[in-house]
């Protein structure tokens, strides 16, 4: 992942150790793993989009798939939905995060929220979406809370949630998951832009706290979180799992339609699906371009505002909006989890009763037969993809450390590539390719390809989670070890690895959580042969069995939570034992 920026030649060249030379392989392997499947996947989608798919008899190039796509009823609505939900949810989440940071960066509320961040991030998208649906649906927990006392409803009111035509449910579901992510990314970046000193300076010049943040910190913070923001736009404009649960269905956002067409029994629809997958890529690029234009506009309009000397702009509003909305999104997420728990334990729960009686484990027992194998598959996929990703990530960071390279913009783009290209576009092409290979070499889709597919999404998150701690480790520890005559490899195993155990464990927990939450790669790359907790939860969510859905969503949520618990507890345990031995 490192830039090959050459150091000036020194007179004495030290021959690099075998270890140092082996490490060069890590960034190479990582870049290959991230770039090749995406390029191949996009190419694999491009062929059928122009009528070329020999397996299905497409042997001439034509524009027919595009014509078929063009004639699809509701295409305009699909595209509009993807664009609007993508940009609106990102804008909302970013506003919440920025105003919250501006108004509360020094407060106790902030320290509290900071502690909640990792567990909130570990909540899989699907579980959060299912919980939100259970919370805000007409017969959901929120409506029960105000019924019949405040609202006067004795039967569930008639409004459409989830699945409203405007995509409001979908936007809400995206926002509650994007806020923790953007908050975490901003926290990492804040330390790089002297945030505290600058707000102090601006406040001593008379600026109100929020205004000080907006005028003195944000202009340098935003460039640092730009890539994460773009990743959020790409995810929000092209996601499938949240949209299947919360989005409208007639018509759904484009990415969901692509998956429907791909799974259509009529195989000829695959040509059109390919064209739609490429269109999705275009839509995401359009959303990104639109956002970029807004950035330029804001920068241009903001320039004079920055130096106009006004000290209270947006202060009150920011405090109310930032505080209120950050807590609303955290509360929504928390309340969603309560809704899930109640539904998973409910037997008979008529509207508008708030608390289901009796509570029982019957739903869990009923689910156990399916739950167990799905959990094992989920774990196997998560462990294998996380182990491989962590190995590569640690290799890359070791390469940076040992060979003294720094990561350039190109390398970060490669890292963000799987998060920027809509998965539905390239996974779809990979599936086509897999089908070709299967026909020719009897290479069947299944566990191996699904695990590699998970790596595409797990690896960037493991890297983002670990890089900061790895780079911040005081280089003098390693220099000390070298001065004591230890080789770089020995220093890695005996010095850096133990000192970085805690962040590595957390990064692996993040990796597990990302893998456990994956829907599309599992579904497509295993050709539907692998059943994980996530695929099962999403399938169930579209059915009517709320109790069973809640059980699966909770199981899907518990697994990453368990991962985080172990990651936090393991280093402490080892540390404790070390201290015990010393005493």
């Amino acid at each position, binding site marked *: 992942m490192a830039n090959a920026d050459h150091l000036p030649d020194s007179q004495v060249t030290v021959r690099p150790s075998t270890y140092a030379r082996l490490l060069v392989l890590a960034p190479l392997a990582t870049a290959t793993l991230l770039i090749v499947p995406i390029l191949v996947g996009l190419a694999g989608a491009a062929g059928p989009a122009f009528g070329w798919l020999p397996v299905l008899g497409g042997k001439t190039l034509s524009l027919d798939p595009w014509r078929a796509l063009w004639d699809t009823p509701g295409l305009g609505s699909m595209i509009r939905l993807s664009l609007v939900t993508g940009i609106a949810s990102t804008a909302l989440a970013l506003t919440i995060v920025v105003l919250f940071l501006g108004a509360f960066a020094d407060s*106790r509320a902030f320290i509290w929220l900071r502690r909640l961040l990792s567990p909130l991030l570990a909540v899989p998208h699907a579980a959060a979406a299912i919980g939100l649906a259970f919370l805000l649906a007409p017969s959901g927990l929120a409506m029960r809370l105000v019924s019949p006392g405040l609202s006067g409803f004795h039967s569930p009111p008639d409004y459409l949630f989830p699945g409203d035509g405007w995509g409001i449910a979908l936007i809400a579901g995206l926002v509650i998951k994007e806020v923790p992510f953007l908050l975490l990314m901003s926290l990492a970046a804040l330390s790089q832009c*002297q945030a505290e*000193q*600058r707000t*102090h*300076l*601006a*406040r*001593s*010049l*008379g*600026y*109100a*706290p929020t205004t*000080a943040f907006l*005028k*003195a910190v944000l*202009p*340098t913070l935003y460039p640092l979180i730009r890539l994460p923001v773009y990743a959020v736009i790409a995810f929000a404009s092209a996601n499938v799992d949240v949209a299947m649960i919360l989005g409208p269905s007639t018509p759904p956002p484009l990415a969901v339609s692509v998956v429907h067409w791909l799974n259509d029994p009529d195989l000829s629809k695959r040509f059109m699906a390919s064209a739609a997958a490429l269109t999705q890529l275009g839509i995401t690029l359009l959303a990104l371009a639109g956002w970029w234009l807004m950035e330029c506009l804001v920068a241009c309009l903001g320039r004079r505002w*920055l*130096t*106009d*000397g*006004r*000290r209270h702009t947006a202060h009150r509003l920011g405090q109310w909006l930032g505080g209120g909305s950050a807590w609303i999104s955290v509360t929504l997420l928390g309340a969603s989890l309560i809704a899930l728990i109640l539904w998973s334990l409910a037997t008979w729960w008529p509207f508008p009763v708030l608390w289901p009686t009796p509570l029982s484990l019957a739903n869990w027992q009923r689910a156990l037969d399916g739950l167990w194998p799905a959990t094992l598959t989920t774990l196997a996929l998560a462990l294998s993809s996380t182990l491989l990703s962590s190995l590569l990530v640690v290799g890359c960071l070791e390469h940076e450390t040992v060979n003294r390279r720094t990561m350039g913009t190109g390398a970060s783009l490669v890292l963000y590539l799987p998060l920027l290209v809509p998965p539905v576009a390239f996974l779809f092409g990979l599936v086509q390719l897999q089908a070709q290979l299967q026909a020719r070499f009897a290479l069947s889709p299944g566990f191996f390809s699904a695990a590699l597919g998970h790596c595409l999404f797990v690896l960037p998150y493991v890297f983002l989670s670990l890089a900061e701690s790895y780079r911040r480790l005081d280089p003098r520890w390693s220099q000390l070890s070298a001065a004591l005559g230890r080789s770089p490899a020995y220093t890695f195993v005996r010095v850096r690895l133990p000192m970085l155990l805690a962040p590595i464990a957390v990064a692996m927990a993040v990796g597990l959580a990302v893998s456990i939450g994956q829907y599309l790669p599992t579904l497509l790359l295993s050709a539907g042969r692998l059943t994980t907790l996530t695929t099962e939860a999403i399938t169930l969510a579209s059915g009517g069995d709320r109790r069973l859905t809640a059980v699966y969503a909770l199981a899907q949520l518990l697994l990453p939570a368990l991962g985080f618990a172990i990651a936090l507890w393991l280093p402490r345990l080892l540390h404790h034992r070390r201290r015990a031995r010393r005493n």
Partner: protein
Amino acid sequence: MRPYMPPDSSSSFSDSLVFDNVAIDLDGHRLITLNARIAPGEIVSVMGPSGVGKSTLLAYAAGFLAPAFRATGHVYLGQRELTGLPAQQRHLGLLFQDPLLFPHLNVGGNLAFGMPASIKRSERRRRIESALADIGLAGFAKRDPATLSGGQKARVALMRVLLSQPHAMLLDEPFSKLDAALRHDMRQLVFERIRARGLPALMVTHDHADAEATGDAVIELLPARESEHDGMLSSPSNAQSSAPGLQHAKR
């Protein structure tokens, strides 16, 4: 309460900065106690080894004390009590170790950032130009602060604070990152401007030359714990009481 001030007057506010029975505790341990009255144009130095709480005192005065500390006592500017006010309403100009020029604004923008909003655009531009000319940087308004030398940055940072029309100054080791030659010039400039405007100033420093250059009072802070066993200290003015914190010597 505030005397009338024409906008670009450099006359004095003639208000003293008063520390009245100030005490700062950390985890139940007394860190600092202070009684002081700083007259307009006077620059009082606070000295002491690192870790003794010099910066804590400054953070307290400016309104940025971390929640872990507990403080009692009062800070006044003339008749006005500052203690309960948020940082942005105290009108205390803060000069840091680093110039902290905003990289997203040019030199002129950095100066404009400090000016009150009531000043109109053409007047803002005029004042930026005259402030820059004043520190030998005429025509630098459009420059990127990253292209300035260390001394130039420090001068711009000083002008930014002064353009915000502070009522008193807090200096946090303002010269410690400058090299020896620059340090002397910068000291002259800062002290001269503070005196010309008649601002009371509190300067935290560990450089005796800084304190000597002011010719004003010096407050020595002694480490709370080590001051209990004498002789461990290498403080120059050691003839004072060994009670933790307050040592106020007028020279």
